[in-house]
């Protein structure tokens, strides 16, 4: 048995007996499912391109809290009527029935060993409830900060998010994963979003925990008729990162937009695995993931589109263009279409290329230094993804952070080239 499995199973005992009975049963079943499956290895089809050996080797010293303490001041600000943002622990204490049957409904421990591990170690997190017709313009920001202990020992954190979006409610939720200082260990995040009729929810994930932190995220959304779920993910870490997104369109008129920007630098490994399931007719999905890989990093994009037999008039689009900025970087891109209906519009495409040499020369011929010209071009490539965000302040903030990450990549290239 590995260090990670042993230490986590031991550490979870601290809170395994807490909370309502249904949760304790869920946790134990999940722990058993995790022990049966073990950590995923590359023998599994879904993990072919990503090696979790660095995770298996970790000996965890603690499980870090992820609840109320991490919510920050932004949530204390007054929220409009009909919108509640609370820590999961608090909801479990005061009104567990509100989330019984919902928490864990989409994230199935039997289908994923890491979802099982997350559920087995589930203690706290954030619950967002949007009553029918409730709307908030200002993004709800949640920041998860990993921080090292004084001995720099590995820590694990298991943040959980549950979003219950009532009919015709509307909100933007930002999940910002970062750390002031590199913190060894593992962040294992699961989110579930239930969108009722006509709801519009935008989920923005910023995955920016630096190496050696290992980041896993598994987000599940179920979208009812006329509702729209938008996901925007920016992966800016230089560590080992796996991000899963699973969207089910379950009634006519459901829509989803799934956008991602991932940047690889150093020896980073970034793996995006998306699944969109068209389970009803007249649903629309549009996915665009863009990768910029530099240094010796590796990118992986795997996009499954499943169209069920009665999902006629489906419109499903997927694209994954990638820029390789160094000879040692690589990307593995595999769209996967499983279409069982016959009246469907589905398109997918992936490309792997370098910066346009003519564009680069044009900018230099106007006096712009090569490194700055490269930045202008990578910025243009990346920012197209962020342009779709609804909130202008958030958009500007994210573009700034992407530019900083691109600049770090470019300066590493320049230094490496000179050496």
């Amino acid at each position: 048995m590995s260090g990670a499995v042993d230490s986590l199973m031991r550490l979870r005992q601290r809170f395994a007996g807490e909370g309502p009975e249904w949760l304790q049963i869920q946790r134990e079943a999940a722990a058993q499912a995790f022990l049966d499956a073990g950590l995923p290895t590359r023998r599994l089809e879904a993990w072919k391109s990503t090696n979790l050996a660095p995770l298996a080797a970790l000996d965890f010293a603690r499980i870090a809290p992820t609840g109320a303490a991490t919510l920050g001041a932004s949530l204390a600000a007054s929220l409009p009527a009909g919108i509640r943002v609370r820590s999961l622990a608090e909801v479990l204490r005061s009104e567990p029935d509100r989330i019984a049957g919902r928490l864990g409904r989409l994230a199935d421990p039997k289908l994923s060993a890491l979802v099982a591990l997350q559920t087995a170690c589930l203690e706290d997190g954030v619950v967002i409830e949007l009553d029918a017709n409730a709307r908030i313009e200002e993004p709800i920001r949640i920041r998860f900060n990993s921080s090292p202990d004084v001995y720099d020992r590995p820590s694990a954190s298991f943040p959980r998010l549950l979003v219950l979006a009532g009919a015709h409610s509307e909100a933007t939720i930002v999940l910002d994963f970062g750390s002031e200082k590199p913190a060894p260990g593992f962040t294992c995040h699961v989110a579930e979003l239930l969108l009722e009729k006509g709801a519009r929810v935008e989920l923005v994930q910023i995955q920016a925990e630096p190496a050696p932190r290992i980041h896993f995220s598994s987000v599940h959304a179920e979208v009812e008729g006329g509702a729209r779920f938008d996901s925007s993910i920016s992966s800016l870490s230089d560590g080992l990162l796996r991000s899963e997104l699973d969207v089910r369109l379950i009634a006519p008129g459901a829509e989803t937009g799934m956008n991602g920007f991932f940047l690889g630098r150093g020896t980073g490994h970034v793996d995006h695995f998306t699944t969109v399931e068209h389970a009803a007719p007249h649903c629309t999905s549009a996915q665009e993931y863009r990768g910029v890989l530099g240094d010796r990093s590796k990118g992986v994009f795997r996009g499954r589109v499943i169209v069920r037999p009665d999902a006629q008039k489906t419109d499903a689009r997927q694209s994954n263009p990638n820029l390789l900025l160094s000879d040692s970087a690589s990307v593995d891109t595999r769209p996967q279409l499983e279409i069982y209906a016959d009246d469907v519009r589905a398109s997918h495409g992936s490309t792997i290329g370098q910066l346009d040499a003519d564009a680069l020369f044009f900018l230099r011929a106007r006096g712009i230094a090569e490194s700055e010209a490269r930045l202008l071009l990578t910025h243009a490539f990346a920012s197209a993804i962020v342009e779709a965000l609804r909130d202008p302040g958030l958009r500007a903030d994210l573009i700034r952070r992407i530019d900083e990450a691109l600049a770090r990549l470019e300066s590493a290239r320049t230094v490496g080239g000179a050496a």
Partner: protein
Amino acid sequence: MPNVPLIEIKNLHANAGDTPILRGLDLEIRAGEVHAIMGPNGSGKSTLSNVLVGRPGYAVTDGEIRFRGQNLLEMDAETRAREGIFLAFQYPVEIPGVANNYFLRTAVNAIRSHRGQERLDAIDFLTLLREKMKLVEMPEEMMARAINEGFSGGEKKRNEILQMLLLDPAFCILDETDSGLDIDALRTVANGVNQMRSADRAMLVITHYQRLLDYIVPDRVHVLSKGRIVRSGGKELALELEEKGYGWIEGEAGQAS
């Protein structure tokens, strides 16, 4: 140093890829002069302009180029631009996602910094930009768009001339700027170029046809054939070429060698 040519090309041999194109080209241009180079397709016109601006893929195998007495071939492309060399491209590239106005300000400030001038802030730049846009009759909305994206052929060429006006170069090379332009666009472009004529600036107009030289009247005309200048003369040489065709010069050059 009024007697030093602004640009001095001696015995230039250059390859495009692995193919030798320029085979011993000599040319001197002084400040204040406008020279035209004419020649048939494949004579080396575009190779010359690409070599002058340091485009990757073109290798100088012999000879030298001096710009204000400095060895131009030792400079990278961006340094040449900052030192005052400007090429108006024959086929301006489209760059999705990079806004024209942002690009232009970045370029102007790169060049100003190199010259020891203060960088322009957004407001001062806008004032300068508006003034220059009037000269090439470009609508303001084109500035917020991505560089050349969805521009017509004429709009792209105007955008090139706008860049030239903004960057204020000492030596301007116009590579087939007339290609793909209707007569109105040609007039506008030529008007922009003529605004730039001055005693401390030189221009090299590269063209296949004489038409552009009705609007940008050169001091000297050179005929390029098989990588060398085979004949030079005044502006009347362009008219003679138009009348007799390139076969006339090439036949003569063939007999001479």
